[in-house]
Every structure is written in structure tokens, then in C-alpha cells.
């Protein structure tokens, strides 16, 4: 620390800080007070703190360089958030700000030792040193990771809130300096909708810190923007990318409760108006805290009323440097020397321990100073026009890359400092013309021309006679670039990758030109021949949270979900459905179904209403069995196979009326089957008169199962005769249940018990559910969950498609061969199933029931069945302990060689060890004759 002396200046015109609102915060464990409107760094500078970080490789002390978002030395940790741009982020009360990438402390860091051996740590050192021996890499990795920069996050903290927004707008203006503001206003005046995006917290660009005349122009421009409701303004937001068809990515920070928001914009025309970024100068000691760019000085003085030093040396090669001199003088800084780059003057080096203490001039003069300001040129951030197809060209007169003007689509325009130089009025005029053209083009009009904006001459100043840093983020020096060139990395793209220059958090905005200029010097090739690296998205860093946005994971619930939750239902996520797995004791629930009566919520079962005279043709096409003679009032079990004969779904379909059917599918297959039917109807059989309406959730579906289910039904059903004779197995009826009309009920039995599946209009689902429980109280009724149903169906030997079958299981291998009717005209999968029946059966796996010899054993699902020499002969697809029978019950896919009833097979358990199990005669363990089912 340099003591507590306040560096806060008296009020400055255009200052952003509010002196009536002090904000207390912590830095590196100590308490400080800043002002509302301060950035973290301006607040600290005002308190006399001027070192904010240690550099990436040599751990050198770093302070302010640009006092903007890209400032490489001002990255800090704020509370749990790492990598905060301290020269951009607004101070907030209570912030706990810490330096990152320091150990043990900012003042003393052990990695400083790297600096002492720096000449051995040239570019490529890591690549060359740690590649061999390869077996040591894990050890290297452990050590090197301690040297990586990047702060820390706590895994305990909750995920931050991020979201997204979609915008469709005529014109997007990226950058709200004078040209961008004028472009937005002009575009709006053509009738276009405009989105104006500005990286800073307020509009204006450099007009904000360029004197009273600029402020007056700015307030006029701001008023023009405010007066046009068709301009939406986003501040603290940045256009991070431009993609095909003008989809423009905008990152908005701290908006609507979100930390970051990705705004996905479809823009008619994009106007790039990013202004210019001031370029650092390369010389020994150019990274010392106290060495700053002229724009940094002007921001600190004019926006935050902070005195950047006491005794200054200024190297200026342009008007902005001159203006910085004026600003410094005005606020009482002792400007001890001004060196004019335009007249060939320069400096040799800066010196100091940990911070700037003196500047040495070319003639050897040493000037003690705590502030060295450089104004040696500009970088045009050509990122967005690069992404749109332009390849920037070197303008040697202006000593910067400028848009080539070729390659841009008509939907992308550039204006302002990116294009050229001029007075504020000239920049505004250019912006206005570009905005008018953008608005016209976006609305389908040809539009007029845009005046030229020429670049002013600027001396080409890149490096002094000494070597210094070209990349402050990555600690790449001009020496590294020269060394890389000597090693043969002699193009800008190669040098970038070998030295990592321009690859750090500043992403080339400060470094690119100096890197190429030093490379030019080292290779003797002109900068225009070397060209610049390609700027790719994102222009500014974007968090993974913003890319993800809200996590949309739709969930589905039945009308009875509230009841399940209130009665101890343990949730099971099945696809998108949340279902009750059990209510505490699945085995007891299963036993109750066998003994009394149970009800289960089967709403997720897929349901499709089929109507039209050609429904039987459709059913015959998609099911392997026959459907032509299904009578009104009957249901039939059907199996669907894909064209390759593989089982894709099963379920029952009932004929409700002459031309009206209700098809049920598996819960997970509902969407697939709907698509499957529509696909056949819309492509192969568009002449068939069939309409398919998905009604899965139009009905709440409840399965009533158990020997007492008929008795229960009699208490709640009106208008339907329930006797076996009147309403037999595999029949369907429509009627009233518990006072609710339009219910469908069919007699089927997945559980193997006498059971009725009722489909009631979903809004009445809870009413009917509760009515059943009330009506069946004396019958011992009890709700059962998915687990009990799985036990019951397994006891009955009923398969589940995709559990007991897989992506290769043809109908015959699922024990469904008898249903395949090859004498039908045609159906999906027929050719393959015909082939399979003729040639494939001898080798195809078969579905069998297995009973472990040890009654207490239940092999986990997916356990392998093996031969005596260890070959795999199959696998267990389903397994449970049967509460009804008191022993394990399994279904398995096995090789035909071991499929015969009575065969004893060996099952290898996943955790090791083998058990033996006997192949059963029938798939059903309980009631193989189906007596209970048909009761």
C-alpha cells in the first residue's frame, strides 16, 4: 500500500461518482470506502492502492494500464466470482474484493522467482520442457496448475441465475460513441427499430471524458436517443459475435436479476461502431504500475475524479496524448516532461521496484516520476467486421489496421473510429449516414451513400530501443516474439500460437499490432505483408452460465401428483414424467393387489385417439397382428415393429365406436408412436382417411387391480354392466365413473390380476382417484406405485419393451413370434420378420423366465449369463424378489442353446460370484393360465 492519502480530486465535469453515496468494501482483507459510480479500481486508486494483481507468468506487480474492460492488470476476485474486470465492474457496497493468482500474498508472491530466471522461460519453454518423459506429466500437471491464473469458485455456492432473450430488430448498432449514437438516431428516423449496444455503463464513448464541449454534444445526442422510443438501449452489454444471416450475439451483464444474459438477436443490418482502442508502447518496464495509456488517465481524471499520480512524464504522438497533458496539468499533477513522438522523441525505459520510480530517456536522462503516460497509437477493433467477412488491411500512414471495405455483406456496415478519424462533427455525420443507410436497407430500401472518413497520419511507434511486454495478459515480451521468429515462427498466426501473444483475456485488443510490428522488425517483412490474425467470436469473454441460460428441463405430472406427494409417494423420474415409485413399501403394495385391490396412476401411458374409416388399415400396417375384425367394444393387444423387425412398442387399442378408436402405447413410446403413425399417414398413405389426435393427458388413467376390483368398480361405475359375461376380458366400455361422464374403461391385466384400466377426463382425475380410495376403504384398497407394478408384471411374465427388449430384439426374440401374422398383406417390418422366421430363429436370442436356484438370490438386472468356459450366453433383463412367491423372479434374453425349460444356467453377478437359475416352462410365474386375469 502507498498509504491512505486520498487521491480523489474535486468535482470534475462529467464525473460518474456520486459523492453523497459512499460505499464500504474490502480489498485484500482490509476495509476501504469508495463512491457510487466508481469502478473497483477507481475506488482503490482513490484510496491510494495502485497494485491489483500479479502477472501470469513472472508474477510481476500490475496496476492500471487502460482503465477499461480490457485492462489486463485489473482482474480480481469479487466474493465467489473470479476473473472480474476490476477496471470495469462498478463498485457495490459490501464487496469483498481480493487479488487472484497470488500465493501467499499480493505483496510477496513466490512465483516472482520466475522473473529471476525469466531468460530461461522463453516462449515454448513449457512445450519443450514438460513433454518428456510422458509418464511424469501427471506430476507436472499438479505443479503447473498451481501456477495457472484464474481465481477460485466455491462448489458449495448455488448456481448463479442466468437467462436468455431473443430479439428481432431492424438495426443493431454496436458501440455508442458519437458515431454509434448518431447512427442509432438516424436509423430510427428512417422508421427502423434499433438496438443500441454499449459496453460501458453509459452512452457516449470517448465523449464522456473529453472535455466540456464533448459533454455538451453528448448530452444532445443522448437526448435524441431518449426521444426515440424505437431505440432500445443496452448498456453494460457487448456484441460478442456476428454469425451467418446476421444473427448477432449480445452479452448483457447484470440485467433483470441475471448475472449475465445472452441476447440472441436477428438483425436486419448490423452497424459496427466500436471506436478505437489505445495501443500500449513497448519498452523495458512498460508494465510497471504507474505506466498508463493516455485514455486511462483521461478516464480516471474525468469520469472518476481520481488523480493518477503526482509527477508525470508524458510521451505523446497524438491529440489525445496532448489532451491528457492538459487534464493532468489542470488537476495539479506536476508534468515534468512531455516528449513528442511526432517529433521523433521517445523514452528508453521505465524503472522501479514493484512500481514506477523513474523514466530514462534516450539521452540517458533519468526523470524520477510516479506516472508515465503514453499515447503512441490506436488499434481498430475490427472483430465484428472480421466475423462478417472483411479482412482488415494495414494503413501505414495511420499505423493501424482498417477495414478493407471488401467482403462485407450489405447487411453489415462500419462507422466511427473503426473506419477513420475526424472531428466529433465528422464522426457524427458519418454515423448518421451509416445509420440512415442501415435503416433503409433493413426496410428493403436501397438507401444513399456514406461519406469517406479518412485516417489521419500517425507516427508508427511500436517499440522503443529496449524490449518490453507486448502481451501483458500472457507475459509475452518483444524478446519472445523475436526468439519465435528466429525459431521459424515467422507469420503472425504462427507467432501467436507459439508465444500465446494475443491469446490472453485481452484477446489481442491491446497486443495484436505490437506483436506483428515486432515480428515485422525481426523478420524484415512489412506489416502489410504479415497481415493481422483473424478475430473470432466472442469479442468479449462470455460465461458458460450465459451460454446455458435458464436450464429448461420440462417435467410432466399427472392430475394426481399432488395426492402422491401428500401421501408419501417417492418420486421417480421416468423420461419427463414425475411418478410415484412407491409409497413406502412396494412389496406390501404388490401383495395387496394380489389379495385385495390396488390402484395405480398410469396417466403417462401414451394415448392416441384415432378416427376415420381407414383406421383398421392403419392398425394392420403398424401392428404385426390382425385388426380387421376388432368389434366395437373390444380391445386387442398389439405389437409394433420397425421396418427392421425390431420391437418398437406395444399396447392395447380399443374400438370405442364405429370409426373411433383409442390406442394406448408405452409411457416412453407415446411421442415416437404418434410420429410413426403420422409419418405413415403423411408420406405413404396420404389418401387414407384417418386422423390421429394425441390424448395422453386428456385422460387421467387409473389401473384398478386385484380380486376385489370388480366389487370396487360396482360402487363407482354407472351405466355399465360389469359382470364377466357383460364386460369380459379384453373388452372396452364407456360410461360414468364417480359421477364423471365420458370415461373409458377396459379390462386388461398387466399385473396379472382381474383389473380395469379407466381413463377419465383429466381434470376429474383427482376426484375419481379419491372417490375410488373412499369407496374401497373396506375392501382394503391401497395405492401402489411403479415399483409394485413392475414386481407384479414380472411375476406374471409380462415384458416391458426397451427393458426386456433392446435395439436388436425382433418380435420372435421377445416371445411375441406367435403374434406375427405373415399372411397379412403388408405391415411394417414384414419382410424382415419373414426372413427372420425362416432363417434367423435358430440363432436369435429368446426371452425366457429364470428362477434362481437359491430362493433368496436376486441377480441384478444386466447380469450376464455365461457358459462353463465364460462365454456370454445372455443377460438378465428384469429381476425382482417376488413377494407373492418368496423367491427371485427374472426375465432374461438367452442364447437358444440354453433356452429350453429346465436348463440350469450360470449367472455372473456384476460384483463377482456366480449363481444358478433354472429356465422356466412359461414366462409367467403367477397364474400362467390367466385364470385370475379372466375372473
Amino acid at each position: 500500500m502507498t498509504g491512505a492519502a486520498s487521491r480523489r480530486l474535486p468535482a470534475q465535469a462529467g464525473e460518474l461518482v456520486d459523492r453523497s453515496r459512499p460505499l464500504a468494501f474490502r480489498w485484500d482483507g482490509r476495509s476501504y470506502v469508495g463512491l457510487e459510480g466508481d469502478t473497483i479500481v477507481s475506488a482503490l486508486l482513490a484510496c491510494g492502492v495502485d497494485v491489483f494483481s500479479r502477472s501470469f507468468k513472472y508474477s510481476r506487480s500490475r496496476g492500471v494500464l487502460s482503465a477499461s474492460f480490457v485492462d489486463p492488470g485489473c482482474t480480481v476476485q469479487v466474493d465467489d466470482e473470479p476473473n472480474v474486470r476490476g477496471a470495469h465492474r462498478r463498485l457495490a457496497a459490501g464487496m469483498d474484493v481480493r487479488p487472484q493468482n497470488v500465493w501467499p500474498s499480493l505483496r510477496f508472491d513466490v512465483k516472482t522467482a520466475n522473473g529471476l530466471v525469466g531468460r530461461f522461460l522463453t516462449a515454448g519453454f513449457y512445450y519443450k520442457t514438460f513433454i518428456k518423459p510422458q509418464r511424469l506429466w501427471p506430476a507436472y500437471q499438479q505443479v503447473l496448475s498451481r501456477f495457472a491464473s484464474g481465481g477460485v469458485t466455491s462448489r458449495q455456492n448455488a448456481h448463479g441465475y442466468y437467462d436468455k432473450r431473443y430479439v428481432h430488430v431492424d438495426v443493431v448498432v454496436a458501440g455508442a460513441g458519437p458515431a454509434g449514437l448518431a447512427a442509432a438516431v438516424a436509423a430510427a428516423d428512417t422508421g427502423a427499430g434499433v438496438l443500441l449496444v454499449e459496453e460501458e455503463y453509459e452512452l457516449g464513448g470517448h465523449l464522456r471524458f473529453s472535455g466540456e464541449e464533448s459533454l455538451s454534444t453528448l448530452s444532445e445526442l443522448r437526448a435524441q436517443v431518449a426521444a426515440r422510443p424505437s431505440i432500445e438501449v443496452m448498456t453494460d452489454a457487448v456484441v460478442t459475435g456476428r454469425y451467418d444471416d446476421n444473427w448477432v450475439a449480445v452479452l448483457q451483464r447484470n440485467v433483470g436479476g441475471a448475472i449475465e444474459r445472452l441476447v440472441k438477436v436477428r438483425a436486419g443490418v448490423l452497424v459496427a461502431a466500436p471506436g478505437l482502442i489505445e495501443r500500449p508502447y513497448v519498452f523495458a518496464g512498460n508494465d510497471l504500475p504507474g505506466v498508463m495509456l493516455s485514455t486511462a488517465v483521461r478516464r480516471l481524471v474525468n469520469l472518476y475524479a481520481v488523480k493518477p499520480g503526482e509527477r508525470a512524464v508524458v510521451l505523446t504522438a497524438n491529440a489525445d496524448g496532448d489532451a491528457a497533458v492538459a487534464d493532468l496539468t489542470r488537476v495539479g499533477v506536476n508534468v515534468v516532461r512531455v516528449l513528442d513522438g511526432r517529433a521523433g522523441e521517445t523514452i528508453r525505459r521505465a524503472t522501479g521496484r514493484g512500481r514506477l520510480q523513474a523514466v530514462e530517456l534516450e539521452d540517458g536522462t533519468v526523470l524520477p516520476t510516479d506516472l508515465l503516460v503514453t499515447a503512441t497509437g490506436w488499434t481498430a477493433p475490427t472483430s465484428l467486421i472480421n466475423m462478417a467477412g472483411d479482412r482488415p488491411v494495414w494503413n501505414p500512414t495511420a499505423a493501424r489496421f482498417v477495414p478493407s471495405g471488401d467482403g462485407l455483406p450489405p447487411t453489415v456496415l462500419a462507422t466511427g473510429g473503426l473506419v477513420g478519424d475526424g472531428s466529433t462533427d465528422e464522426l457524427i455525420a458519418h454515423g448518421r449516414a451509416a445509420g440512415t443507410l442501415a435503416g433503409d436497407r433493413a426496410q428493403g430500401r436501397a438507401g444513399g451513400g456514406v461519406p469517406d472518413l479518412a485516417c489521419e497520419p500517425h507516427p508508427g511507434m511500436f517499440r522503443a530501443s529496449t524490449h518490453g511486454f507486448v502481451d501483458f495478459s500472457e507475459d509475452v515480451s518483444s524478446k519472445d516474439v523475436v526468439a519465435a521468429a528466429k525459431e521459424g515462427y515467422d507469420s503472425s498466426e504462427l507467432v501467436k500460437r507459439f508465444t500465446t501473444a494475443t491469446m490472453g483475456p485481452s484477446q489481442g485488443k491491446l497486443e495484436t499490432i505490437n506483436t506483428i510490428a515486432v515480428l515485422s522488425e525481426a523478420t524484415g517483412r512489412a506489416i502489410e505483408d504479415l497481415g493481422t490474425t483473424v478475430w473470432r467470436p466472442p469479442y468479449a469473454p462470455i460465461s458458460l452460465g450465459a451460454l446455458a441460460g435458464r436450464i429448461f428441463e420440462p417435467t410432466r405430472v399427472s392430475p394426481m401428483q399432488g395426492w402422491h406427494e401428500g401421501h408419501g409417494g417417492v418420486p421417480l423420474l421416468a423420461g419427463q414424467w414425475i411418478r410415484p415409485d412407491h409409497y413406502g413399501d412396494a412389496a406390501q403394495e404388490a401383495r395387496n393387489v394380489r389379495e385385495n385391490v390396488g390402484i395405480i396412476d398410469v396417466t403417462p401411458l401414451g394415448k392416441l385417439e384415432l378416427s376415420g374409416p381407414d383406421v383398421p388399415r392403419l392398425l394392420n400396417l403398424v401392428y404385426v397382428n390382425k385388426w380387421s375384425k376388432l368389434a366395437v367394444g373390444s380391445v386387442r393387444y398389439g405389437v409394433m415393429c420397425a421396418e427392421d423387425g425390431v420391437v418398437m412398442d406395444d399396447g392395447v387399442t380399443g374400438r370405442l365406436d364405429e370409426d373411433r378408436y383409442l390406442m394406448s402405447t408405452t409411457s416412453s413410446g407415446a411421442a415416437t408412436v404418434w410420429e410413426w403413425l403420422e409419418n405413415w399417414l403423411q408420406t405413404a398413405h396420404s389418401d387414407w382417411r384417418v386422423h390421429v389426435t394425441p390424448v395422453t393427458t386428456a385422460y387421467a388413467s387409473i389401473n384398478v387391480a386385484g380380486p376385489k376390483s370388480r366389487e370396487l368398480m360396482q360402487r363407482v361405475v354407472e351405466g355399465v354392466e360389469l359382470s364377466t359375461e357383460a364386460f369380459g376380458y379384453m373388452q372396452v366400455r364407456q360410461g360414468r365413473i364417480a359421477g364423471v361422464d365420458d370415461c373409458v374403461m377396459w379390462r386388461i391385466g398387466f399385473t396379472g390380476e382381474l383389473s380395469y384400466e379407466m381413463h377419465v377426463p383429466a381434470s376429474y382425475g383427482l376426484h375419481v382417484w379419491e372417490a375410488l380410495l373412499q369407496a374401497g376403504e373396506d375392501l382394503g384398497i391401497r395405492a401402489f406405485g411403479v415399483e409394485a407394478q413392475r414386481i407384479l408384471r414380472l411375476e406374471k411374465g409380462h415384458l416391458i419393451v426397451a427393458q426386456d427388449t433392446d435395439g436388436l430384439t425382433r418380435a420372435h426374440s421377445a416371445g411375441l413370434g406367435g403374434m406375427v401374422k405373415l399372411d397379412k398383406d403388408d405391415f411394417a417390418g414384414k419382410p424382415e420378420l419373414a426372413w427372420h422366421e425362416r432363417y434367423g430363429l435358430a440363432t436369435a436370442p429368446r426371452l425366457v423366465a429364470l428362477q434362481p436356484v437359491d430362493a433368496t438370490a436376486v441377480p441384478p438386472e444386466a447380469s450376464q449369463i455365461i457358459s462353463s468356459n465364460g462365454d456370454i450366453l445372455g443377460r438378465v433383463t428384469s429381476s425382482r424378489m417376488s413377494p407373492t412367491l418368496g423367491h427371485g423372479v427374472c426375465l432374461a434374453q438367452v442364447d437358444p442353446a440354453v433356452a429350453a425349460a429346465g436348463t440350469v444356467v450360470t449367472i455372473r453377478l456384476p460384483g463377482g460370484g456366480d449363481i444358478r437359475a433354472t429356465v422356466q416352462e412359461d414366462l409367467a410365474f403367477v397364474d400362467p393360465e390367466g385364470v385370475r386375469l379372466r375372473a
Partner: protein
Amino acid sequence: MPDTWAPVARSAITVPGPRSVVDGWEVSTRRSSAALRLSDASPLAKVSVRADADGALADAFGVRFRSSRRRDGVLVIGSGPGEWLLVGGVGTAHQIAGQVCGLVAGDFVSVVDVTHGRALMRLTGSDASRALSKVCAVDLSDAVTPEGAAFRSSVAKVTTDVIRDDAGGGAGEPSYLLHCERSSGQYLFKCLLDAGKEFGIEPEGPGLDSTGAR
């Protein structure tokens, strides 16, 4: 056993606040005067109609895919090619279905009452499109989605029919009807409340007249 059952219908959407049974539906009676409101409109009758996209029924409705209009107190929505959704007053599904069947005799038309199978909600307020644009990528500008426009798209990853229906929203503000499959209704409702939080959104119960308008 009760001699007569008293069935109560319940929406897929739970809106906080006091509840009462209106027209056989248990609903929240909560009303909101917030600038942005999301109301449950699920009790309204909903009828799905399928017919030839350019046939006699399309002519009789005067509504094609992507548009909607009110006709005799029923909002007729062209929700897909050859697919319409009709929204009417609570308990009128059978009546609507009967009317549709009477419109064109002889044509192949399917009419299915989906009142209970779908969730319906209404988002109303000057910031309605801003909130919706956080969960739906479709251009909601007047040029592309004017009053009466209807489209089916992903809203918070749920397949949703969206209908621009300022007229039905009352108060001359932008208003959207959102219609999705029932079991996702509560999820979609929550997502819209989340999206509208920055605009001060509040949920409210039904309270709709027979035209589907407030």
C-alpha cells in the same frame, strides 16, 4: 357411498390464493392488477378439429393456419395445417363440437374434446412480449405476429400454441394465449412467471367469460 357424486374439475395449473368452485371447477379467485399478469385459463372449453387444410371447413371457419378469429363467442385458432383449436366458454365443448359437425356435412372431419387434456394460460401486459421473448425465439413484432396471429413453437422447451389475442386480454394491452399439453402446464406456467419476474409479473386465477376473453 354418496348417493350422488359431486365431481370437481381441477386445472393442471395451481395458482396461489383463495380457492372456490365455479362452474364445477375448483379455481383460484386471486386477481391481480400488476402491469404484467399470467392467468390460468384452463377451464375454458377446448376442442381440437382436424379436416382438409383447404376444404369446406376451412372456408366455413374463415381461418387458416397461423391465424385466429372470434366467431360466435368461440375463438377459432388455425393451430396447424388442417388443424384447428376452438376455445369457448366453460362447459361448452359438446356444444362447440356439435356446431362444427353441423358446419360441413359429408366431409371427413374429426372433432375431439381436449378441454381436459390441455393447459391454457394468458399472459397480458405491456411487457408481455418482452417476457415471452425470454423463452420463445419467434419474432413477436407487430409485423410478424400481429393481433390474431397464431403459431406453434417451443416455449421454454415445451411445444406450445401461442395466440396473439390483445382483444381477449381486455384493457387494450398486448395479450397472448398459450396452450400446451396438460401435464406440462404447471411447468410452463412456472417458466413464464420466472421470465416475467423482472417485469413484476403476478399469477391470477381464471375469471374469463364465455368468449375466452377476460
